[in-house]
């Protein structure tokens, strides 16, 4: 685990703890204004959690909309309500242990559903290529598993994990020495060599800090071949079909493309809904003009 990863883990737990503490304060505080202010901690921590998950745009939007807009509105409403602090808020009628058990059951079922319905790591499909007597099966996914990556897709983060399995047919004339992963993007070229480790052994490598752009994978096998009587050094290259992918920094562009593309209609419908809500609010808040 690298230093950055440890920092990220610490940050995650601190943020999660402060989100939960804030939520508890919202629910437990007797003073409703304090509850409203405790929401600040919750919303900021959740934004931080988004940022930890590399969803920077969502984090920014979360703070901008919830803290800058909705929380201010809530605080205004709470502060301006007449004698709101005098109201006795108490949940004494709720039986404590039973409520606790109910919450626990709910939490447990939620966790179970999340555990089994989430696709935690989006692997790519396995691609197989064959040359002479060798067969390479090849798979890639992203290091943190937070955002998906498939063949021909995009990676929103810069580290990509590649796994390849090399199997050799019954051919004593060809001897394998090394397996080489190569990722190319224009003039950029990143490669990693592995010594051969037995039959059908998986070779796994994390490519970190890939620069932005279109990338393509190839796997090369370096070895020797008995050619008549001499042993010659040889290379078998496996340009795998459909292994291109794009590395992009940040999620702003994919979100923009999604909103202006497949989700355009939904987006517009939601804005019409908001407009209707606004008109309704203005109608309710307007002053009655009475004829004299």
């Amino acid at each position, binding site marked *: 685990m690298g*230093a950055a990863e440890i920092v990220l883990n610490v940050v995650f737990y601190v943020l999660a703890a402060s989100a939960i503490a804030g939520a508890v304060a919202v629910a437990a505080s007797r003073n409703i204004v304090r509850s409203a202010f405790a929401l600040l901690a919750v919303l900021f921590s959740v934004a931080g959690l988004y940022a930890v998950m590399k969803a920077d745009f969502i984090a920014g939007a979360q703070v901008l909309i919830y803290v800058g807009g909705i929380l201010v509105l809530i605080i205004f409403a709470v502060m301006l309500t007449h004698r709101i602090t005098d109201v006795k808020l108490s949940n004494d009628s709720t039986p404590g242990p039973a409520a606790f058990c109910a919450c626990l059951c709910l939490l447990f079922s939620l966790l179970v559903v999340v555990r089994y319905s989430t696709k935690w790591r989006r692997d790519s499909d396995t691609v197989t290529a064959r040359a002479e007597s060798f067969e390479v099966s090849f798979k890639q996914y992203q290091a943190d598993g937070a955002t998906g990556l498939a063949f021909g897709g995009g990676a929103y983060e810069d580290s990509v994990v590649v796994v390849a399995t090399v199997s050799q047919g019954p051919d004593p004339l060809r001897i394998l020495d090394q397996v080489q992963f190569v990722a190319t993007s224009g003039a950029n070229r990143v490669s990693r060599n592995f010594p051969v480790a037995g039959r059908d052994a998986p070779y796994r490598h994390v490519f970190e800090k890939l620069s932005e752009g279109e990338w393509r994978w190839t796997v090369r096998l370096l070895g020797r071949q008995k050619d008549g009587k001499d042993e010659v050094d040889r290379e078998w290259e496996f340009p795998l079909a459909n292994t291109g992918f794009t590395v992009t920094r940040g999620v702003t562009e994919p979100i923009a493309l999604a909103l202006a593309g497949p989700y355009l209609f939904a987006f517009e419908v939601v804005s019409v809904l908001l407009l209707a809500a606004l008109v309704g609010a203005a109608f309710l808040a307007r002053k009655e003009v009475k004829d004299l």
Partner: protein
Amino acid sequence: MTPIALASWALELTGIPVLDAFLSILVVCFILINFIAVYAGISTYAERKIAGHMQARVGPYRVGPHGFLVWIADALKLMIKEDIIATNTDRLLFKLSPYVVFAGSFACWVALPYAPNWSPASFNIGILYLLAVSSAVVIGILMAGWSSGSKWALFGAMRSAAQIVSYEVPIGITLLGMLLIYGTLDMQAIAASQAKGLPFGVMEDHYGGLWSWGINRWPPFTVIAFIIYYIGALAETNRTPFDIPEAESELVAGYHTEYSGMRFSFFFLSEYANMFVVSAIATTFFLGGWLPPAPSASGTLLLVVGTVVGAGVGYGFQRRGFDGFVGAMLGSGIGALVAVFAAQPAADGAFTGKGPQILEGAFWFFSKSFTLIFVMIWLRWTLPRYRVDQLMDLCWKKLTPLALINLVAIGILETRHEWWALIVNHFKAAGP
């Protein structure tokens, strides 16, 4: 190289990478927070001195040469003052709010592009982050106003929150228009993309110096955008003529009426920190960020000479009075344009931020930002205060529609090639 990288390089002493990572973040924050404190101190001195000179006084004069050290004396005084907490306050929120306010303005400082490729934290979503975290200030102000248990403080906080939330709308819309031009949210990329191009989208591959800056991109509209942004920025930082949240004649001191000593100074610090942040955003979006006004080092000299000579010639043509002023302005503009063109052949890739250009870039960034801060101070001692209804009227009935029109205009101009192609293709398809 970012300051983070520098700090972690200096701190690879422990040899434990995790500790180094945390330490480097701490060091960067330490440097920044001290910089803010010193900057805020010096700008309070500047504010008082400028106010003095504008009102034909000398301003602070006792401590240090020309009273220059008065800000240190002020800081010491604020630190040793008694921390008074009135009985009617909500103690927890009362104590918390100065930190929330200060955290909101401090968090903005890490995302500013101080020099080419040099920000404490380089964000992909720079401007969105800046707009987002600065909203913590509103919450802090509301917290301070409510927890003080005083009607002056509550009124001040209400006015301030209403004002900031309202003025975020025209500010956001104008910045959106500028983002259409740049096509990125990254502050560094925004600054860098103002190196090339001339007004009206002509000669897009040429280094135009100050003619390539955002404010000159589509002249009437980008200039209007800058003015709207600057007015909104004044309102967001509660500066005159929009300082009704702390109107002395009505509200004692607004939301920080009940605060004293160190807690009060946090509000003060935050106000000055915010002034720098909004000026820095204006600099980055409209005035070229860390780019110099001419496309090369020798060009800057040429630009100064051209401007002065042009101004002199213009003044000579028009003699004196208002005509002389207009002549000088026109002359200096023409002189600057000629100088930038004359400097074209020497354009050295105009500031891609390599090597010693970091210092030069920081110089231009800070001088532009401080100029805008000076204008804020100047306005404070020149203009009277708005009334609440006038302020809201200006925001919702004037600035917001204007900003929307501006956004549409810039959008059309930026996509003019596509529109043109659409029209041409339409007629081609319709023709014989």
